[in-house]
């Protein structure tokens, strides 16, 4: 990433973090819920962007990690009262990361379109696991009756109120996005970039591209799991569609719209796409036509994404590189 893009990326992130911090004070009711959903999806997109961008892995199976964590919460939630948040979240995230480890370990050996097909197959496998077999309530999905509670030493914190749940989401997503931003700039991120550009060279520098990519994939899978957990906690409901490849493709669209080579890009992509959806939905029942058009236009017109595009507008006249 060149210096200018890096600066823009940092500025956008800061702007987003500040703006998002105001949400519980200026918005209310339905709008807070919408902001919560968007923030969670932004976290998912940023986590996915980390493997699509630096690691160069076009995963069309990330929804599976997201969905598995959601199902773990649903299955661990008692019918009678709220689940213990730290415990269930730890198990859900760990479960998602473990699943990502299995998927990554066998998929990352494949490259290009084979990797894509592999991740689709695993995602669909997860979808059918919950859709066709008896686990987790079949195609009807399953409920989280009570939002999990945080048991601290002296008190139990409930997140039933929308503003407070939003703040929880804000903190978790802040951590995830911050971690992705940090990792991209770290030596680890540089090794990933080097492996993406020149695999043989990176190996000859003493690094195994397979291993570094797998580490990135597992980290990202775990983060996707955290977002799935939050979604299940927010809506109190999980369904097999959460794992299917269409859901993965939606997350990829967010990554593409904002730009996979930045941390802020996928988050901005998520915000724009979900706001567009929201507006289109109010307007017509066939809002997916609009989404389809947005995707086609974005792919053709700005394949590198909005953030690099905006950063490019401010570029000095001479040739530059990103």
């Amino acid at each position, binding site marked *: 990433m060149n210096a200018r893009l890096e600066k823009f990326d940092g500025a956008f992130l800061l702007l987003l973090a500040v703006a998002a911090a105001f949400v519980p004070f200026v918005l209310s009711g339905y709008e807070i819920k919408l902001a919560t959903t968007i923030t969670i999806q932004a976290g998912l997109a940023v986590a996915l962007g980390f493997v699509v961008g630096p690691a160069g892995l076009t995963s069309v199976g990330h929804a599976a990690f997201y969905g598995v964590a959601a199902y773990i919460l649903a299955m661990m939630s008692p019918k009678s009262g709220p689940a213990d948040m730290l415990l269930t979240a730890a198990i859900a995230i760990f479960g998602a990361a473990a699943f990502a480890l299995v998927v990554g370990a*066998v998929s990352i050996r*494949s490259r290009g*379109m084979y990797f894509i*097909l592999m991740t689709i197959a695993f995602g669909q496998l997860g979808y059918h696991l919950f859709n*066709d077999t008896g686990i987790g309530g079949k195609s009807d999905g399953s409920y989280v009756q009570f939002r999990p509670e945080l048991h601290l030493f002296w008190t139990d914190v409930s997140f039933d109120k929308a503003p407070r749940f939003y703040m929880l989401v804000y903190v978790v997503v802040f951590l995830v996005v911050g971690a992705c931003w940090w990792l991209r700039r770290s030596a680890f991120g540089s090794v990933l970039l080097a492996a993406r550009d020149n695999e043989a060279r990176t190996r000859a520098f003493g690094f195994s591209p397979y291993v570094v990519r797998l580490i990135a994939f597992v980290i990202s899978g775990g983060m996707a799991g955290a977002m799935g957990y939050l979604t299940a906690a927010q809506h109190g409901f999980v369904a097999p569609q959460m794992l299917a490849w269409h859901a993965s*493709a939606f997350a990829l*669209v967010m990554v593409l719209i904002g730009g996979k080579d930045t941390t802020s890009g996928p988050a901005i992509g998520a915000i724009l796409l979900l706001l567009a959806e929201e507006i289109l939905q109010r307007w017509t029942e066939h809002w997916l036509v609009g989404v389809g058009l*947005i995707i086609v236009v974005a792919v*053709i017109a700005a*394949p590198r994404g909005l953030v690099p595009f905006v950063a490019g507008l401010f570029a000095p006249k001479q040739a530059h590189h990103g």
Partner: protein
Amino acid sequence: MSTFFFFVQLLNAIQYALILYLVASGLTLLLGIMGVINLAHGAFYMVGAYIAFAVVQQFGNFWLTLPAGILIGLALGALIEKFLLSRLEGADHLSQVLLSFGLILLINEGQRLIFGNDPHGVEVPKILAASIPLSNTLSYPVYRLFVCAVGIVFIIAIGLIMAKSRIGMMLRASAENRDMARAMGIDVKFVYLGVTAVGIACTVLAGVIAAPLASVYPGMGDQVLIQSFVVIVLGGIGSLSGALVGSLLLGLVDAFGKQFFPNYAAFLVYAAMIAVLIVRPQGLVRSRGT
């Protein structure tokens, strides 16, 4: 299991395999020759089925559906190559995946807009409506045999075209080496246009002839899409003969899997693809255009 029952399942497997082959051959050419991963192929299959439904409803004549499907398929393919795919040359798979995902949304929603969410049936043409009795309880519909016949004619036709004709030679050359093909005076742009048009037309045709077999419903192409990818991975990208073998294998897995493990049939299909890629991470050998 009685012999007759087994026989019927076997026929069903072959018939399904032939439909799958129609879809997969277009997909594998697109992948092999153009390197394009098209996830919208299942949606085109559904388009075919709805074309059959609409034409039969409007004109009451099934035989019109075949040319209608082929022509619309060719036009659709040509438009998509001309206005979308050709702009992606040099782009990565991410762009292709998302472009085709966008197309899926457009097609699915367009279908809902025009036809609604209800499943529809397409009547089998009169002459093919009979069934051949096999035993007291079992019989086999003639229409399914017709589907097999179309599939077999298609296999022979495309086999001859690839092996004998100038077009086949051009396709094989373009798949082998784009620049070389250009140097030989082959209009690669034209080849791409042709491959996309024909590839999508095959898929639409598959949807047309599959329509009377079961109901026509939203999302009916999803399963076919994933299964044809499995076929291609099994058979080797770009290989038509490989696709045929893969289709037959998958037809068998599907037909018998549904009988014996109704809950796990979908699993088996994905597991097959994953297993192949674990053993051969870069797919089975790519043998172009054969």
